[in-house]
């Protein structure tokens, strides 16, 4: 009887050790090292090639820009120093104003893009490291100007 009891107790002890071990395994996986990636976070501007434009001017513009993005820009790389890029700025400007005002805004942006000396002093940074320069600043509406000092990194673009 005593032998049976001690055998049962040994059995219980073994079960206890095994279950402790199992628990330790779970803890180990919980606190184990995470898979670390040294890859830079993807902050590239993903192109929207969709055609949702009902306005004929915008439809033509979107077609031209889609062709430019597909055949030139995407192949060439993300090289525009501004965010949004000049082509995207053009599209946004036309969407927010009209084709004439949007074109004028684009030509002005293109001239500013050619300026290789003055950008640091005038523009804040977008999260992708480019100069943040949204169309809302150039719509000639005082209320739409949200001034952000240079060198500041804009979080909510």
């Amino acid at each position: 009887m005593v032998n049976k009891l001690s055998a049962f107790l040994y059995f219980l002890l073994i079960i206890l050790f095994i279950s402790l071990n199992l628990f330790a395994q779970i803890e180990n996986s919980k606190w184990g090292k995470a898979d670390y990636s040294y890859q830079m976070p993807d902050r590239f501007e993903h192109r929207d090639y969709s055609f949702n434009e009902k306005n004929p001017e915008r439809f033509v513009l979107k077609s031209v820009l889609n062709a430019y993005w597909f055949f030139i820009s995407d192949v060439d790389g993300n090289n525009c120093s501004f965010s949004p890029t000049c082509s995207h700025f053009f599209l946004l400007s036309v969407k927010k104003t009209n084709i004439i005002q949007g074109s004028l805004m684009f030509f002005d942006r293109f001239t500013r893009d050619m300026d290789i000396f003055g950008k640091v002093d005038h523009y804040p940074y977008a999260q992708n490291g480019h100069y943040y320069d949204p169309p809302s600043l150039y719509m000639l509406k005082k209320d739409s100007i949200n001034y952000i000092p240079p060198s500041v990194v804009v979080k909510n673009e």
Partner: protein
Amino acid sequence: MNKIIFLLIIFCTNSFSQEVRSTQSLNLFSPTNIKKFGDYLFCQHDYLRASIEYEKYLQNSFNDTVSFKIGLANLAMGKFENASNKFLSISQNSVFYNLSRLEYLQANFQTGNYDTYRDLYENLNLNSHYKYFFKARELYSFSFLFTDNPLPQKKIFLNTFPEGEQNKIGEFYSWKSDPPYKSPVTAALLSTVVPGLGKIYTHKYSDGIFAFVTVGILGYLAYADFHANHNFRGWLFSALGAGFYGGNIYGSAASAQIFNAEIKFQFFNDLKNFLEEHNYFVPLINFCK
């Protein structure tokens, strides 16, 4: 042996029950201890938990110091509405009455409700003999510099402030009464006459030079191509040149607006820094000595 083990267990259980009894007699959740814990958290700048403990304390007791401290804690956390409500709840009999009214006013100033601040200052029946009343009066004058309302006369305006600081505040007043804004129309006209000149007028010097060079080169190319009977290229460069010329006129007007927004931003920044540096706000009572 078994008896000894049994006795040991009984003895240990007994000592443990003694411990529990001594802890229970401490009553950690008595109002006094809740307040003490709230005071500790307040002094540790843990304002959120401090205000929670204080609110618990106020459910069973009345204490105007605690109410005032909840107001201060909310102020420190940026919860201006809660702070204002708490400051307003302090009764006229309290020693914190005058101070809480000033803190309430100040909460409105710090949230940028300058018009509300002025209305409250005029209608709140503040005690003008209170030692910090002059601070509310100074902030009242400053509130005019933050809004587009007409300014009071310069002499009356400056009389509110100590003599040593009147020069600097006078500069702020002059800026506000005649801000050095750039006219978008002038900028556009200047760029119409000479491409890029409007940008230079708004202090975007390199932008102006690049605009002048771009329009100049495209204009020259158009002229040279027409001269050489290359009409297609002539029209192409003309169109591009016209686009850049028009874009520069438009951009100069936009640049003037951005310039104005920039100097306005800097003015408000300077003004806020001045207020912080020269202690124009009501001094905080040190409750954690």
